[in-house]
């Protein structure tokens, strides 16, 4: 009885079933229909053509938007959003040179005696200072240079000179004093378009946390010439009491600050950031010294965590 019942389905049972492998190979190339990956060549062509046109149109719209914006709204020499209107703010940070090879590191590390060991740092500095030496060769720099003075700020379009030739011992000829285990580190203040420092003027308004040495120096200088006090002052010291001991005496060349006449920065041709060379005269060797340098002006904020108004680096001389 069961068999007779099955017979009515006999025809249905014979179905051509394919194995998974066959299905896959048919998917890649179906001989019957000439389909490749489920589509014929013509079909693939159409799709390709469609997407080419579609993406070309999309890219065109993007380019048109971008070009319109860049040409009509962007001035190649002046940022649209300046200082507080943007995010750069009004409180510049500091930068130091020479920089280590690995951008993530801030450690200046060399063996005190061997040339091979400090040549990298020396080359870095030579490279960095080259623009300061060959002013005539940089575009527009030569003719734009103006002899600035505290009473004599540069007129618009002109830039002040930074003379680094007689910064002994921090000179190229002296290997920036690296070979004597008393290296020179160059500091510069970050450029912010249009930013003007507000100087500490009187004796009374010097901040409490300013190093006593610097305070004295400022008093001496300002008592000599009130205009020479228009400086963004710089001070460096060890981060921890131990570091402060290890760091030894420091010397700032040419002086402990950036003269005020370099500001504001207006992206003029040939502008050079003023520099301060910090000479570590007798740093302790064989130990990492954490150094923090601060810039001092009334509108330079200080925040160690967000690194506002300071720069941090380490030195290790073996």
């Amino acid at each position, binding site marked *: *009885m*069961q068999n007779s*019942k*099955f017979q*009515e*389905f006999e025809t*249905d049972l014979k179905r051509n079933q394919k194995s998974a492998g066959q299905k896959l190979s048919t998917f890649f190339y179906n001989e019957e229909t000439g389909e490749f990956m489920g589509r014929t060549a013509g079909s693939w062509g*159409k*799709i390709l053509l*469609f*997407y080419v046109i*579609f*993406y070309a149109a*999309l890219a065109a*719209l*993007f380019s048109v*938007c*971008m070009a319109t*914006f*860049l040409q009509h*709204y*962007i001035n*190649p*020499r*002046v*940022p*649209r*959003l300046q200082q507080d209107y*943007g*995010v*750069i*703010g009004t409180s*510049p*940070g*500091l*930068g*130091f040179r020479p920089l*280590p090879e690995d*951008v*993530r*590191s*801030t450690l200046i590390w060399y063996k005190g005696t061997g040339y091979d060991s400090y040549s990298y740092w020396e080359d870095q500095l030579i490279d960095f200072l080259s623009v300061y030496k060959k002013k005539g060769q940089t575009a527009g720099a030569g003719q734009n240079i103006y002899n600035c003075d505290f009473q004599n700020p540069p007129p618009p379009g002109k830039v002040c000179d930074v003379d680094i030739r007689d910064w002994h011992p921090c000179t190229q000829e002296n290997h920036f004093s690296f070979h004597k285990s008393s290296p020179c580190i160059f500091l*510069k203040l*970050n*450029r*912010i*378009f249009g930013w003007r420092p507000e100087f500490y003027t009187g004796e009374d308004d010097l901040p409490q946390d300013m190093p006593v040495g610097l305070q004295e120096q400022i008093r001496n200088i300002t008592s000599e010439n009130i205009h020479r006090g228009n400086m963004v002052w710089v001070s460096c010291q060890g981060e921890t009491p131990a570091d402060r001991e290890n760091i030894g005496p420091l010397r700032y060349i040419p002086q402990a600050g950036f003269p005020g006449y370099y500001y504001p*920065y207006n*992206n003029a041709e040939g*502008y050079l950031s003023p520099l301060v060379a910090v000479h570590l005269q007798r740093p302790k060797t064989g130990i990492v010294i954490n150094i923090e340098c601060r810039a001092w002006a009334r509108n330079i904020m200080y925040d160690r*965590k*967000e*690194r*506002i108004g300071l*720069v*941090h680096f380490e030195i290790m001389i073996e």
Partner: protein
Amino acid sequence: MRSRSSSLSSITDLFRPSNPTGLRSRDLSSTRLSALKKEIQTDAHLIPLKDLYTNLETDPVSGLRKEQAHRRLAYDGPNTLTPATQYGWPLLLFKSLCTGFSTLIWLGAILCLTAFVIERATKLDPGTDNLYLGCVLITVDVICGLFSFFQNYQSCKIMKSFKSMIPMHTRCTRDGVLDTEMPVRDLVKGDIVEVRAGDVIPADIRIIDSKGFKVDNSSLTGESVAVSRSNVEGTENILDSPNVAFFSALCVEGYAKGVVLCCGDLTALGRVAGLAARLQPKPSPLAQELHRFMRYVSVWALTLGFVVATACFALGYPFMQTIIFVIGMIVANIPEGLQPTVTASLTLTAKRMVSKNCLVKNLESIEALGACTTICSDKTGTLTENKMCVRHIWMWNREFMMATDGDDSMYQHKAFEHLKICAALCSSATVENETIRGDASEKAILNFLLQFNDPIGIRGNFPKVAEIPFNSVNKYQMSIHSDSQTKYLLVIKGAPECILTKCSTIMAENKEVAITEETAAVIDKVIENLAGTGERILAFADLQIDATQFDLNLDFDMDEANFPLKDLRFLGLMGLIDPPRKEVRSAIEHVRSAGVRVMMVTGDHPATARAIASDVGIATQRDCRVVTGAELRRMTPDLLTKTLEKHYEIVFARTSPTQKLQIVEACQKLGGVVAVTGDGVNDAPALKCADIGISMGITGSQVSQHTADIILIDDNFATIVVGIEEGRKIFDNLKKSVCYILISNVPEIFPVFMFVLFSIPLPLGVMTILCVDLGTDMWPAVALSFEQAESDVMSRPPRAGPLVSPRMLALTYGHLGLMEFAAGMFAYFVVMAEFGFYPKDLFGIRKQWDCEAVNDLPDSLGQEWTYWERKEAERAGQAAYFAAVVVAQMTNGIICKTRYNSIFHVGMRNMVLNMGLVFELLLACFVCYTPGLNTFLRTYPLPLKWWFLALPYSALMFAFDELRKYCIRKRLFRAWYNNITLY
């Protein structure tokens, strides 16, 4: 014979309380399940009683010996139903925390925390970003997990409701002593028990001795018909066997003494209960769809993550950076908003269904109803009212249809008066406190008579003198009443063929006529016709016995029959039927036009089943296949499948609970999504196994309601049609939601590629990605489920395509997503340029940009930026990108409203979506402008003008999509475009 008893002993072993077979608990449970799925194989009801006593070592008079009973109790366990092993809530919680995307999110969170720990161990002042992100991811995961946990935490109450059907005490004889207060749980195999009217049978028993014993097996068969059980020869199928009474059946009449064949889980009901409790229903179609989608997305996300990680290592990126890329990839790819969207749209639909008197217990089942391809419907109580009523009356030469409430000619028919009296006297149903008690057919007759006059009054006028109750041999019931006119009235009711042979005259319009051969032929024809409609036919006849012939004081001797029982006067026929519910026919019509196959699976007789099937429109063709339970038992599973494939209209009759289950499983094996409607305990396994179990709220038994996914509170079958429509709408709208969610994936993934390949600062951060996925995208995605149903939703076949088709991917990833990405990049470049970083200088800057040590990074204008300053710029750029994505997603919300029609045609009438779009913008503003929150989420208070940067792209997207839909509607380019992007 041997193999049978050995299989019986093995199944007995399987259900012993102390797991004896040494199987692991999981193996044991699956072995038990497969044992339960088989039909009961036993010969205990076939062998002579004497052999049975020997097998069971019992004695019909004195019962078991006490110590033996105790031994058996200790060995086999008590006569109760063991609940299936249930997972504790911790496991359930763990499962809901680790399903779907959760695992991936956990992976992301662990990566974040690892990154944080590494950073903390290696750096002096570690950033807390990774910690925050890890915590946010964990929070997201836990919330989603708890969400689905509470959804899953429907504790199984099935066993409890089975337990309520078990009686507490019974009468049992042991050691020759009758214990009337024997606890039912102490019964063992071989015990001799006594059952009386009103009792619930305490175990499966074989009848030894009985008197007028009738049981209602509705808990097993679903048919509430009282059937007689006595000590007669058994039939092969134990469920039909007239010498066995089953556990939990109600004894309606009479008395019986029986020997216990099996107890507890091994009883017929125990098996049904065990099956219903142990069956693990397949995941719902929606869950399957989502699962598949999640699997693809997970593989895709992990592949991308892996590719990016490999590329990073090859390019020499540090480990930490790589981890962040991988996290970004994972977070961007996972549609975190999908699960809440699905749950929300299901919950909302379920709420709407409650107002239509449809309780959705299992949320996903409402969507499954939309996908449903086959409905297996029980007959009694589901398609019909489970209430017998008189539908046809035939009196000489006239047939009256009662459903249409008759015409006056019936009242004028002379025979009707006599029929009424006869029926009133014959019906054994009684009225107690306004409720009618008795057998279903008797109740139907009394109900029918109550429409016309007072049958109770008639009974008072004709006191009963003697009666022969119904029995299955005679197939009639007769009583003699004394008439006030000093006469006796003999009334008889029974199967038409045996009544007809006793009649010589028939009551015609006004006079009595003799039954000739022609008249007999006419009556036979009528009976045949009525039987064809599935009605139960009762014939009525009476006879006036003259008092002169019989003394009034004469004792009628029923056994001797000292009275005439021939030459009766035939009065008429009544056709009784359990009528189909009114709304069922049109509902089934609707369901079938929606491409859903409707089958009937019932425990009732084939003829009745067939008749009701054609009545309600399940069987419309003559060749509708009727498969009986006996036939089904002989079928191989293969043959059943073939039969299901070959015949579109099938009626299964006389099926047992396990067979119902087999049918459902066979349909599912054919790839169908099966809905089962049922109301009885016998439907419970099928309800549980089906993709959608639908039970009735009024007639449904407690067990079926506990098992079901959906309960029709007012028993209205038509609600199923609404359910199908809602289910299909959910799926359609879910597609729109998924499309909407997927579009925003592209602008989330590509920034990481830009970051890796072109080394630009990261255009979109991980936190901002989460803001889009779990914040701004949420409401619009949910609101898309409020879209109106498309007009053709009920005229097309059940869905075949997956939730996320290649076409949808082509549209989201290939078209709209890229436009959104372009919008985001444009906004990002513009903002960066305004700060001073022109696009050409951004390329390749990444290494210095992301390095905290670089304190003086020059921009295009020579300004020098400290780390924190440029991170602020990056934040602003990312926020602008975010704003562009939000604006573009608002456009997408409008685009996704319709898959086919123009938006100008559809309009913006979905207020929830409109509000959602406004909310999206407000939330984006909130995220950007709230102090504190914007630092935490790495957004930035953007100036107003930057919000408009994405507008050209929004316009392009909108225009493009309208054009696309236009092409699709007009089937331009030979419908080429339809095949690519119509999802």
